């Protein structure tokens, strides 16, 4: 039994220490917004925030989390995140949408640390997030647009 703080709530989960956070979130806690794409830190679909910093939950073991606070797409709040989410819908960024929880996590983190990212900054920050629908053109546009709205 492990206690995890997820989106501000404490959850007691029946998990062995070696269970990746991804599967604990999805199968034990029932938060399915975090997606499985590769299981080896190659696609970013499983990205969550751990004490505010993005991590790949498929490579983050439940036993290593301790008191760190987990934020998933379901619990993502704040001006930056909400702006990103709104812009994503306004620009119709998602196609299948499967990768987008992860994209939004990474984009939110980028904008929180770099309010006016260049294309190169975006490429560097987002390159770990695969999108097989290749919505990259709009992801880039979305991050620029969110930066603009946040500045205003």
């Amino acid at each position, binding site marked *: 039994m492990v206690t995890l703080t997820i989106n501000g709530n404490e959850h007691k989960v029946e*998990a*062995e220490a070696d*269970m*990746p956070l991804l*599967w*604990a979130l*999805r*199968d*034990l806690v*029932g*938060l*399915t*917004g*975090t*997606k*499985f*794409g*590769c*299981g*080896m830190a*190659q*696609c970013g*679909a499983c990205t969550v925030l751990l004490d505010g910093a993005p991590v790949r939950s498929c490579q983050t073991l439940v036993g290593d989390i301790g008191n760190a606070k987990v934020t*998933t*797409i*379901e619990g*993502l709040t704040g001006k930056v995140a909400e702006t*990103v*989410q709104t812009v*994503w*819908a*306004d620009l*119709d*960024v*998602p*196609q*299948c*949408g*499967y*990768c*987008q*929880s992860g994209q*939004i996590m990474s984009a939110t983190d980028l904008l929180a640390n770099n309010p006016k990212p260049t294309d190169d900054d*975006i*490429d*560097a920050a*987002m*390159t770990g*997030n*695969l*999108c*097989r*629908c*290749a*919505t*990259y*053109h*709009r*992801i*880039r546009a979305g991050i620029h647009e969110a930066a603009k709205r946040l500045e205003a």
Partner: protein
Amino acid sequence: MMIPKLMQSLVLPVAKTQASRRQFMLGALAAGGGVALGYHILASSPAAASDSAADGNKAAVFTPYLTIDSDGKVMVLSSQFEMGQGSYNGIATLVAEELDADWSSIDVRGVAGNVKAYGNVAFGGTIQGTGGSTSMVTSWERYRKAGAAARAMLVAAAASEWGVQPAEIIVENGVLTHPSGKTGGFGVFAAKAAAMPVPTDVKLKQPGDWKLIGNAKLKRFDSARKTNGTEQYTIDVKLPGMLTAVMIHPPMFGAKVKSFDAAAARSVKGVVDVVETPRGIAVVGEHMWAAIKGREAVKVVWDETAAEKRSTPELMSIYKDLAAKAPAAIARKDGDIDAGFAAAAKVIEASFEFPYLAHSAMEPLNAVARKNDDGTLEIWGGHQFPDVYQTLASQIVGTTPDKVRLHVMKTGGSFGRRAVFDGDVVVEAVHIAKAIGFRAPVKVQWTREDDMRAGRYRPSYVHKLKAGIDGDGKLVAWSDHVVGQSIMSKTAFEGMVQNGVDPTSVEGASNLPYAIPNQTVGLTTTEVGVPVLWWRSVGSTHTAFAAEAFIDEVAEAAGRDPIEYRLSMLEPQSRHAVVLKLAAEKAEWTKPLPENRFRGVAVAESFGSVVAQIAEVSTDGSGSIKVERVIAAVDCGLAVNPDQVRAQVEGGIGFGLGAILGEEITLTAGKVDQGNFDVYSPLRIDAMPVVEVHILASTNPPSGIGEPGVPPIGPAVANAVYKALGKRIRVMPFTKTLNA
């Protein structure tokens, strides 16, 4: 591959009556009678929609195509499966337009199990399916009429309620009003309206009255739910008591289980069972992690007698040898090819090599099966060929198809991967559920490695091309010999293979638009034990590359500009010429580029649409290249959702670019070398060019758009790379030439 009898009867009638795939797609565009097929169902079986309980507060079933609940929420029931390509949105647009619905009250859910209503008219109407970029083709009349019929029923209900003439009622944004001041939303009249007779002679709006169709500002109805984690995919299905299974598939195609030892696996915490199925061993756990850990502890001994054991270099050398010989079958023959070459002033030749490619949709394949106490079976999944899966599943459990209920889930991509003849992961779920005695619902979830190593790849091909030009540089002889596996032979679509030609092997090569007097397209089909499948844009993934890259070589040999040369072989008003000219104009083709920028062009027709692309690449002097910008000009008939046409072309360019730059599935002694994204590398954001999409205004019915953005990008970039580096790219992926 074994083809179940029932499935054959389900599918073959279509195949037999059609000469070619191309014909059955394009035939549908013209066939008014065929298009109306589903619509007759409006009047005959409105109850067929079923499941209206899921559609909200007392949803009233209007036709098999939509329900409206008492709050006025419109649920469109889509015959077309949603994998990200926006079919749901397109179909919702057609319904909402004719219904005069409030766009924000529209939702869509996938349906199956009523082929009369949902059969794909582009496939002859006898099978429901999503593929060949036909979703707008099959829906264009059907769903507009469904919307118009429901609107007329709502008007009739309101007219009788208010005691007024139907013609006096105005419908706008989901609200009915009468000049007398009477007003009411759809929800108020839904129940009464659904009981009204379904009109059979509805009049559709004139294009000038459209508010939603063709509206570039219309937003997808389903974007918000894809930004907050609430969209539900197959992987998210959770049923009471559900178990999760992972598979151990044979390590080589064609290998079989000889024996297995699951004792250690059974003692892994959370592992519930380990069972054998016809598709391999399934490890069933309380959750995914337990199943994955259990799997590591299973020992399997394989019978590899019948397995494909060859390696990629061996297969490629066989293909190249075959390509040098005369083709086994002829797909196109114009004029006299020998005389053409004999008379040519100059003859050039080139060979092109294409590897196997994996679809690698972001959501690895999965399905959920549950048998209920009443004997019915339910299956959740990305049912791209639902009728086929329903039939196959019923055979496994020994029941009739009507006892199998399919829940059509949205999926994280597909790109063709979920349209399979043998049911694949769908039947796997049913097999596992059966093997555990149906004691719990089972979700089978493939890992990325399972997904990448399970085959059904875009086939590997070799093209051998030869062209002859006369003294004026005019192209007088052209031959293309295609060598590779057939997608359709030995499947339920076998009937489509005529005279040894699988149309999916040569589409894009056998219908080259250029006026070349002597022309031959030959095909030699290979037998390899690697399962293959359609992969976004199918034959044109390789045919368009070979043809459009080689045309560039010919233009160079003739000393001509690549666009001017292509145009010289096209009718000025042809669709190819028009999009080429549009792309050239938007890219300012005749203007010089800044230093270190180079461009290339390609044009290709697929799925009834024609797309030209001009790619601009830059070099850094070290021999590597970057695709900076792509200008696309698109003729896809009428664009129902222009912004989604744009999105599909942007995505198609990224998808196609990733493949030619770096994707490749290879075999070593029969085993697939790649398992995950560390070594199989789809495009990432840093390689994504700026994309500009220009859509030709058209009054023709909509044609395909999910796939046609893919074919031109490879050759356009290859042609630009030649300008940049002086290297012709003839072996895919590009890394082979650029890193050489």
